[in-house]
């Protein structure tokens, strides 16, 4: 080996001068260990542009080689071999199979690493797994597939799911994962189609992601888009599917009869009067004359089935010096809310790699995505919940309503108009999203195969144009909405410039890689918002421009926000492996960010150690174990995904009237933020095991992840401001496990089974606030972060039960002193002081699940394939804020579960108060009456496919998919997936049923 390298080196040195040697032609055959020929293997002379691909019989021919040349044979799934040209002209080469593809490389950030050498926790997902899910967003397809990554689906078309890697480590709103798409950094990858992706690598632990320093705190997901291969015949591919989406598990509301019963029971004269008003206005039901002759199912009125479709075409291939991959995707999805609510995206991508010379390479990568999203008005979900069923959609008597005589609940005496239809019909929110990613890099090998330098420039530019139109309407009872248009034009221009120098070498059993680099970031945002009112010609979409607004309405309705952040980083990495047994990995990054005024510089080191036990000699006789590795890693990361510190008191310009004339003045802040990094420090221990001839692989990781200097909104009393300050420690810890088994029964039947689970404990271990807690949510629905509790814990009273009878009331001094009656809730007196006060509140739970699990089964029989995956979570809580609305307007409707299971006599319920009780302040306190269990189990995806492989036809696969067909949960809502755990107007996540076809030729 050494000699060959030396020879190569010598040859290289003198290549300018050249030896007077006679070129010759050599040929050979390449076979596998079983002696079968390997067609399609690449044979290339190192340092020269001479190569061949083996034919069907494994034969190759190389022309123009000279004695002393070295050629390299590579074939996917086999260990590459290098051979010198010495003497013989005919070569018989046997390639060794690469057991379990241990030489597989993984993209680790500014480079790659052998998978077997990893010391951190990195999970790779291949494109086949991603493509199964019918979705606009790549991340949705990862749900339940990666232990330690929690993905919360969204129902609204075009929106991105919420992604959390290893819990919640920051209190501030910036919990976005960092996406690295072909080297460029993103907060969001909604511009990519699932068909654009080659692979996704999730860097979970700090030591793996530390190389991204300050951006990596919430986890790093590296996305590689598809590319071509050298001398690859063009391959065309079409993939398309179409289908329908339906709301699943629609909340059943109380109907007119149930609602009316509740009203009579509540004893509220006002509400009884409203029911009488409804009977007067709309007549009495013939079935039950005490119920108005109206029974509206509001969810039914606002729901619809939505279509979904996707079409992708792509071609990739390569010539001698160039590889390419280009593609286009069209995706369209309608929302299930019956209004202008849809998403349409067209994106094109191209990637080209060029070997300008042997050592000098460049690549250009471009993705353009053009999407239009009509966003839902989620208030409709909320209104549909509380609108009374005794209100019709259309009220012919409501002559004051125009242009449609929609019913208005105020005319029956209710406080709100309630009817959700005007919201869905007289509103349109269009968002045009255009994103462009352009990357170019140059790479030069200073010392062939050893030292190279690479410089990469990338620019991602996004333009978001939002147009929010309110059409004018009236609903009677002086309810008038005037026409208005709000335009929000936001542009984001982010530039990155990275320079990386990498040295790789192997000396005997010592293999190492060293890398140093710099990275410069420049991220600019501009947001312009203008609202115009009283639009002339509002009836026609062609006049939905601010030009036609009343010019006076722009006064004080124009806002502009401009921000620009800079970052500068220096980083390095060393990875070292001795005899493939002992692994050492270390990174260091120094990061400067203009967001931090106190100290812009942060330093983030990491180290990782690995021991591949299965490579030890003493393991030679342990036949069962094919691979066993122990890993330990420690690292630090920064988080600058927080609001920039002001670093100084700031000025706002205000205007106030004096004698009916506006005068302009200024107000100044008296406190300001002055922060430094949030620092994540993480310890990760892992084990990888492969047994049964690599058929069963198991991975387990345990981590403790502390966020130090956590930025919390510290309350400054008197000044009455919450200022973001470095003032706490947040800890996430958990165990992640995943296992995969693949096997076969006979020739034709193959199967695989995978399962994973994650535990999570999220806790604020330290809070430096004088009160010792950080409040969030509203006063009525309090969420509080306390030391030792989870972030954003729901904070209220523990419900013990419901007072069933007067004897129970009389026996309880708390009930007596609060004038309670049977049907009221019993709360736990936590401090046993004989009173229920603020001090009896406790953390009722967190919206973060403490256990999530997923799995999949895949089977192939001849041309048929079947796969199914499932996902579930447990231990999370959801605040049912829709039910909670009753505390503000207690005349509203409620869901059938609450209506039917209310307390209405001894023994009828021990969880829900009586109808009258629900209107009482005592029962309206935040308690676990409103905070419900969010655990669920769901069949995630079922797919059945049939592959056609015939001589005269292109390769073809047809498939049917059911996405989220069945969910099992107790929570009283549409969906237990609520990103922040507060379910007020969450867009329901629909089920999707599609048929699709994939063609390659």
């Amino acid at each position, binding site marked *: 080996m050494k000699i060959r390298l030396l020879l190569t080196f010598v040859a290289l040195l003198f*290549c300018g001068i050249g030896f007077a040697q006679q070129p010759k032609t050599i040929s050979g055959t390449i076979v596998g260990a079983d002696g079968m020929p390997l067609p399609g293997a690449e044979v290339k002379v190192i340092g020269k542009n001479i190569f061949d691909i083996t034919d069907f019989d494994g034969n190759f021919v190389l022309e123009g080689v000279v004695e002393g040349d070295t050629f390299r044979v590579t074939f996917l799934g086999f260990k590459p071999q290098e051979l010198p040209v010495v003497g013989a002209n005919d070569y018989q080469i046997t390639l060794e199979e690469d057991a379990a593809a241990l030489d597989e490389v993984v993209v680790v950030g500014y480079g790659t690493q052998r998978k077997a050498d990893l010391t951190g926790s990195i999970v790779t997902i291949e494109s086949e797994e991603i493509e199964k899910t019918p979705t606009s967003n790549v991340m949705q397809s990862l749900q339940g597939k990666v232990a330690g990554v929690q993905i919360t689906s969204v129902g609204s078309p075009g929106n991105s799911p919420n992604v959390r890697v290893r819990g919640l480590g920051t209190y501030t709103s910036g919990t976005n994962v960092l996406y690295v798409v072909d080297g460029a950094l993103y907060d969001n990858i909604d511009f990519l189609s699932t068909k654009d992706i080659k692979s996704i690598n999730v860097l979970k632990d700090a030591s793996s992601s530390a190389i991204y320093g300050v951006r990596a705190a919430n986890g790093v997901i590296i996305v590689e888009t598809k590319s071509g291969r050298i001398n690859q015949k063009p391959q065309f591919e079409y993939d398309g599917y179409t289908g329908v989406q339906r709301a699943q598990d629609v909340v059943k509301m109380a109907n007119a009869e149930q609602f009316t019963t509740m009203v009579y029971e509540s004893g509220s004269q006002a509400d009884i009067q409203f029911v009488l008003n409804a009977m007067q206005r709309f007549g009495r039901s013939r079935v039950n004359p005490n119920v108005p002759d109206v029974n509206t199912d509001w969810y039914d009125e606002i729901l619809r089935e939505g279509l979904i479709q996707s079409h992708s075409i792509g071609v990739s291939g390569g010539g001698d010096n160039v590889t390419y991959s280009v593609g286009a995707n069209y995706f369209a999805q309608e929302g299930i809310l019956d209004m202008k609510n849809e998403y349409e995206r067209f994106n094109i991508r191209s990637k080209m790699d060029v070997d300008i010379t042997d050592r000098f390479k460049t690549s250009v990568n471009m993705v353009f995505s053009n999407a239009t999203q009509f966003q839902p008005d989620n208030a409709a979900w909320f209104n549909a919940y509380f609108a009374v069923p005794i209100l019709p959609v259309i009220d012919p008597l409501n002559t004051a309503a125009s242009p449609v005589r929609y019913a208005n609940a105020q005319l029956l*005496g209710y406080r709100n108009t309630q009817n959700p239809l005007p919201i869905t019909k007289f509103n349109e929110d269009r968002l045009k999203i255009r994103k462009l990613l352009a990357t170019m890099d140059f790479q*030069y090998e*200073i010392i062939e195969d050893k030292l190279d330098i690479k*410089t990469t420039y990338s620019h991602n530019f996004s333009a978001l144009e939002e147009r929010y139109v309110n059409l004018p309407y009236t609903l009677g*009872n*002086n*309810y*008038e909405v005037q026409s208005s248009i709000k335009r929000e034009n936001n542009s984001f221009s982010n530039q990155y410039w990275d*320079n990386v120098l990498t040295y790789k070498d192997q000396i005997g059993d010592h293999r190492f890689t060293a890398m140093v680099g*710099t990275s410069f970031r*420049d991220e600019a945002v501009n947001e312009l918002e203008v609202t115009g009112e*009283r639009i002339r010609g509002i009836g026609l979409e062609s006049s939905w421009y601010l030009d036609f607004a*009343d010019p*006076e*309405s722009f*006064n004080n309705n124009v806002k502009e*926000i401009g*921000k*620009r*952040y*800079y*970052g*500068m980083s220096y980083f390095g990495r060393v990875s070292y492996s001795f005899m493939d047994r002992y692994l050492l990995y270390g990174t260091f990054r120094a990061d400067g960010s*203009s967001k931090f005024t106190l100290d*812009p510089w942060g330093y983030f080191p990491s180290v990782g150690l690995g021991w591949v036990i299965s490579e030890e000699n003493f393991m030679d006789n342990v036949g069962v174990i094919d691979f066993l590795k122990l890993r330990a890693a420690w690292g630090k990361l920064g988080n600058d995904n927080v609001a920039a510190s*002001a670093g*100084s*008191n*700031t*000025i706002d310009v*205000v*205007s*106030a*009237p*004096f004698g*009916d004339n*506006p*005068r*302009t*003045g*200024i*107000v*100044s*802040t*008296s*406190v300001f933020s*002055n922060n430094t990094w949030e620092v994540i420090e993480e310890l990760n221990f892992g084990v990888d095991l492969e047994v049964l001839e690599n058929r069963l692989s198991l991975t387990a990781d345990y981590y403790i992840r502390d966020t130090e200097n956590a930025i919390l909104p510290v*309350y400054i009393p*008197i*000044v*009455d401001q919450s200022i973001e300050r470095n003032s706490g420690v947040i800890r996430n810890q958990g165990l992640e496990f995943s296992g995969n088994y693949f096997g076969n029964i006979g020739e034709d039947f193959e199967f695989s089974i995978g399962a994973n689970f994650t535990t999570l404990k999220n806790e604020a271990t330290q809070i*430096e606030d*004088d*009160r010792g807690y950080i409040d969030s949510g509203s*006063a*009525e629905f309090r969420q509080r972060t306390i030391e030792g509790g989870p972030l954003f814990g729901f904070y209220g009273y523990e419900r013990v039960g419901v007072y069933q009878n007067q004897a129970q009331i009389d026996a309880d001094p708390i009930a007596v002193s609060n004038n309670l009656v049977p049907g009221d809730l019993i709360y736990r007196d936590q401090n046993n002081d004989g009173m229920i*006060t*603020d001090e009896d509140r406790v953390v009722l739970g967190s919206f973060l699940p403490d256990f999530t699990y997923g799995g999949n089964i895949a089977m192939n029989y001849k041309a048929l394939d079947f796969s199914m995956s499932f996902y579930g979570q447990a231990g999370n809580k959801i605040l049912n804020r829709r039910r909670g609305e009753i505390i503000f307007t207690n005349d509203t409707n409620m869901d059938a579960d609450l209506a039917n299971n209310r307390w209405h006599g001894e023994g009828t319920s021990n969880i829900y108060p009586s109808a009258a009780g629900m209107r009482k*302040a005592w029962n309206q306190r935040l308690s676990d009456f409103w905070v419900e269990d969010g655990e669920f189990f769901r069949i995630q995806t079922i797919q059945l496919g049939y592959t056609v492989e015939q001589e005269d036809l292109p390769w073809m696969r047809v498939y049917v998919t059911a996405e989220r067909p069945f969910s099992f949960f107790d929570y009283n809502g549409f969906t237990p997936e609520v990103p922040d755990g507060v379910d007020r107007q969450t867009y329901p996540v629909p089920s999707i049923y599609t048929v699709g076809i994939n063609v390659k030729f």
Partner: protein
Amino acid sequence: MKTSKNIFIRLSVLVLALAVSSCSDKLDTQEGQLNTGDIDYTDASQMIDPLIGAYYEISSLGWEEPLLLGVRGDDVNSGGLGDQPLYTETDLFNYNKDFWMYNQVWNSHYNDIINMNTAILQIENFMEYANETNFARGEQYIAEIKVIRAWLHFNLARNWEDIFIITSNQPEAELEQGVATKDEVMQFISNEMDEVIPLLPDARPNQRTDLPGGITRYTAYAMKALSEQELQNYQGVADATGAIINSGLFSLYPDFYQLFKKPGELSNESLLEFQYSDYGSESGEAFYHLYAPFGPQNWDPARDNAEAGWGFYEPSNKFIGFMIDRNETVRLETSVLFTPEGIAELQAEGYTIPAFVSNVTPSDDVINNYVRANFASGKHYLPSVQLTDGRNNYGAGKNFIVIRYAEILLMYAEAVTRGASATAIPADEAVNLVRERADMPALSGVTTEQVLDEKFAELAMEWGIRYYDMIRLDKYQELSYDGRTFTAADEYLPYPQAQVDALPLEATNVDTNTALNDVLSTLNR
């Protein structure tokens, strides 16, 4: 090949060098942010900006502030149980320290105090570079802000008794001193008003041309009188109110009904008035107070599409009965909006309803029955016909009078009837000026009780004036009405729990070694 290699290496070095040098200095930049240090303090023409900012802050009231400050009196009720049950409980003197409104009112008052102190510092920055004239102008501006600050402390002390006096915008040192008693706060206000009076313009607020409606010397006298009244130093009250009366600048606005509507804005009666406006334009900029909580929940406005209110502030039957018994006319008609059910209820209670009482207001708005309440406040009502076209919010653009001359006259009269020496007109004359406008017959030899009744009739629904009079005079039986029982323990609100958690409110020995102090002192770094 060698050449390209060399070029490439040289280029890379250059590239790296550029990358390094071009960025490090950018780390100090904060785009899109205007720092206090960026203001040109040598430009005296900008010195008024922080003052305007101060008026803006004080006028940006939360809707709950006047409600909570006013609801406990026997003149007004909460308007029934609804979505703010603890607000109703407060009206019934059942206080809950966890109720968000207490915390909110506490917080917004102190937040405003801090903002006032910050504005003072801003003006002082200008004064450093100012010539003599501008320096004097700066002193006047600061004096104005101190009057506003006094009003904020005054409200806090009237509601919580012992409170912090905060005169800086970095309050840690003042917090360490602990709370001041109510008397100390009132004395502080009185003393500070003495200091600022000479610095302020000798004019009515509506006479100011630089800032029409801005604070003048007489607003400061009024604040002094109010604080002396709380101290029950009636000679002090008579002196301060006497100064206002003797100035001869103030008079009662002749039309009591319109005083609280747009025509009465910035009248000669006004001593302190928060100003709101949409500048008469149908759309665009508007600066409003949210009056909806005061309004009736259901009405047929004379002008289409004028929005109704929330029904959170209901004149009490006690007050209406009192007015009917006194044969009040314009003051009853102005103070109360009647629903048909409300009128029926009064009849059922045995009152003879005067002819002018109707559910149609003098401005032709028709008040309908609604769930929460039978009556709504007429002093916080703007007739729908006075709304700017295209503006539908309840009371949109209406000013909010805080201190008016009628209160000054009655405070003066009370002080004199309590034995203070009359520094201006006789007590009878002061009371009769007020009665005359209300079409009430003149009195002679007025007693303290008569003055208090006059205050009840004249100032009901306004800022809790009635309630604070009753607790000042320990007239608990007056507050024990409609099934309520008022005791001495009910005079003040409990400190909000969130403040107890954060502030040295109940500690006897103040521990300066707290995280709060650390936080606050690092703020000053």
